[in-house]
C-alpha cells in the first residue's frame, strides 16, 4: 500500500437500524491533496466524515489513517489519531457555554495543554484570518450570525494546525464574497500547513476552487471520482445532473420511485 495515502476507506458500510446510509464506500485521499465530496442531501456525506473520525463506528469495512486501520484502535490510540484532525461542522457546533475566543482556543488549551494567555493570542490571530475582529472574541456564540458562527468554526478547526482538516459545507450560509474568502482560506491552509483536506459541499463554485479531486457520493457509494478538470467531461449522468443543478435526470427519477 502506498504510504502517501493519508486516508483510505475500503468498503465502508454504515446504517442506522433498517436504514442503510453508506453501502460500500471506497475512497483514497493522498497526502497534501484537497478532495471534495459532492452529493445530494441526506446521502451520508456527514456520516462518512464521522466514521473516519470514529464518532460513529462503521458496521463493516476498513478505514486507514496514515496506513493504520483506525476501526481496530483502542480508545487511547484513537485519541492520538484524533489530534491529527480538525473539523468544521455543518452547523458550526460551537460551545455555547464559552466565549468565542475560548471556542477557537479550545483545542490548544484542552488538547495541547497550552496556557490560556498564549492560546488567546493565537485564537485572536485565527479569528482575524477568517475576517473577525478581536472584539468578537469576547462575545458568546449565540450573539453571532450564522455566517459568523461558521467562520468561528473554521478558525477553531485550523487553530491547532492539524495535518488533516474536514470541512463540512464550509460556505453554506455565507454571502458569495465571504464564501470566496473562505475558499481562499481553505486553499491557503492546504498550502501553508501542507494539510490534507476532505470537504463536503453543494456549492460547485467552491468545489472547483478548493478541490484537487472531486468525488460524488450517491446511494451509499462513490459513483465517480476524478481530477477537478475532468468533472465537466465525466460522462456520468448523475454527475452531470448534479453539477448543472438540473431537476430532470437520473437522480430525480430515483426520487420519484421512492
Amino acid at each position, binding site marked *: 500500500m502506498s504510504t502517501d495515502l493519508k486516508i483510505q476507506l475500503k468498503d465502508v458500510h454504515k446504517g442506522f437500524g433498517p436504514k442503510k446510509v453508506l453501502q460500500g464506500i471506497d475512497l483514497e485521499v493522498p497526502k497534501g491533496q484537497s478532495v471534495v465530496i459532492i452529493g445530494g442531501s441526506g446521502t451520508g456525506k456527514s456520516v462518512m466524515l464521522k466514521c473516519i*473520525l*470514529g464518532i460513529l463506528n462503521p458496521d463493516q469495512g476498513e478505514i486507514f489513517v496514515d496506513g493504520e486501520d483506525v476501526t481496530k484502535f483502542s480508545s487511547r490510540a484513537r*485519541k492520538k489519531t484524533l489530534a491529527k484532525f480538525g473539523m468544521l461542522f455543518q452547523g458550526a*457546533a460551537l460551545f455555547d457555554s464559552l466565549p468565542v475566543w475560548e471556542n477557537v482556543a479550545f483545542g490548544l488549551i*484542552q488538547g495541547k495543554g497550552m496556557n490560556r494567555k498564549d492560546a488567546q493570542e493565537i485564537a485572536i490571530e485565527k479569528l482575524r484570518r477568517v475576517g473577525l475582529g478581536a472584539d468578537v472574541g469576547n462575545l458568546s456564540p449565540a450573539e453571532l450570525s450564522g455566517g459568523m458562527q461558521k467562520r468561528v468554526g473554521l478558525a*477553531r478547526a485550523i487553530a491547532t494546525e492539524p495535518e488533516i482538516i474536514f470541512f463540512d459545507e464550509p460556505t453554506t450560509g455565507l454571502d458569495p464574497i465571504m464564501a470566496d474568502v473562505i475558499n481562499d482560506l481553505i486553499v491557503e491552509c492546504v498550502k501553508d500547513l501542507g494539510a490534507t483536506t476532505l470537504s463536503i459541499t453543494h456549492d460547485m463554485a467552491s468545489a472547483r476552487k478548493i478541490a484537487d479531486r472531486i468525488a460524488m457520493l450517491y446511494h451509499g457509494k462513490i459513483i465517480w471520482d476524478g481530477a477537478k478538470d475532468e468533472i465537466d467531461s465525466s460522462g456520468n449522468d448523475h454527475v452531470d445532473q448534479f453539477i448543472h443543478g438540473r431537476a430532470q435526470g437520473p437522480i430525480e427519477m430515483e426520487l420519484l420511485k421512492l
Partner: protein
Amino acid sequence: MRNPLAIIGQVVLASLAEIGRLSKFSATAISSIFMPPVYWRHVLKQMWLIGYNSLPVVGLTALFTGAALAQQIYVGGSRFNAASVVPGVVVIAIVRELGPVLGGLMVAGRVSSAMAAELGTMRVTEQIDALVTLSTDPFKYLVAPRLIAAVITLPLLVIIANIIGVLGGYLIGTGRLGLNEGTYLQVTVDFLERADVISSLVKASVFGFFIALMGSYHGYNSRGGAQGVGKATTNAVVSAFIAILLANLIITVIVFGGRGA
C-alpha cells in the same frame, strides 16, 4: 390482536437493554472520574449550580414538611406525651427519610432535567462530537464533573434540609402546640443517633450520584432535535425519581432492617 406475551417479552427485553446501556454508561463515567485530568473548575461550577441554586426549594420543602409532620404527630393521638413524641418522631423521620428523600427529589426535579437539557442540546447541535475532534473526552469534560459535584453537594444540602426540617417542627411545636422550647431541643438531641446522621448522608450521596447520572445519561444519548431533548429531560427526571426511591428503600432495609424486634 397482538399476543400479550409477545408484548410483555418485548417490554422486558427493551428494559434489559436499557439497563445494560445505563450500566455501561455508568461504568465509563465512574472510570473517567478516577483518570486524570479532573476538570475542577467545572466541578466547582456544577457544585454552585446544584447546591446554591437548590437551597431555596430544598429549604422550603424541609421547613413545611417538618412543620406539617409535627402537627400530624400531635393530633395522631400523642397529645398526652407530645413533649417527647413530637420532637423525637420529627427528627427521626426527617433525618432518616424525609430530609434526604424529599431533598433528593426536589434537586432531581431541578438538576437532572437541567443536565439532560444542556447535554441533550450539546448532543443534537454536535457540540459533543466537536469535543471529541478537539481531543477532549466528553465523559471527563462533561459527565465526571457533574457526578463529582452532585455526590459532594447533595450531603451538604441534606444537612441543611435536616436542620431546617427540625426547625419547622420546632416552630409549630413551640409556637402552636405549646411545647416547651428547651425540652423540644433536648429531646431532639437525645433521640438522634450517629447512625441516623450517617445513613442520611450516605443516602444523599447516592441520590446525588443518580441525579447526575440520569441527567447525563439521558442528555448524552438524546437524539432527534428539540423534541428529543424534551423527551430526554422528562426521562431524566422520572428515572432519577425511581432510582432515588428504590435506592432509599434498599439503604433503609440494609441500615435499619436488622433492628425491629
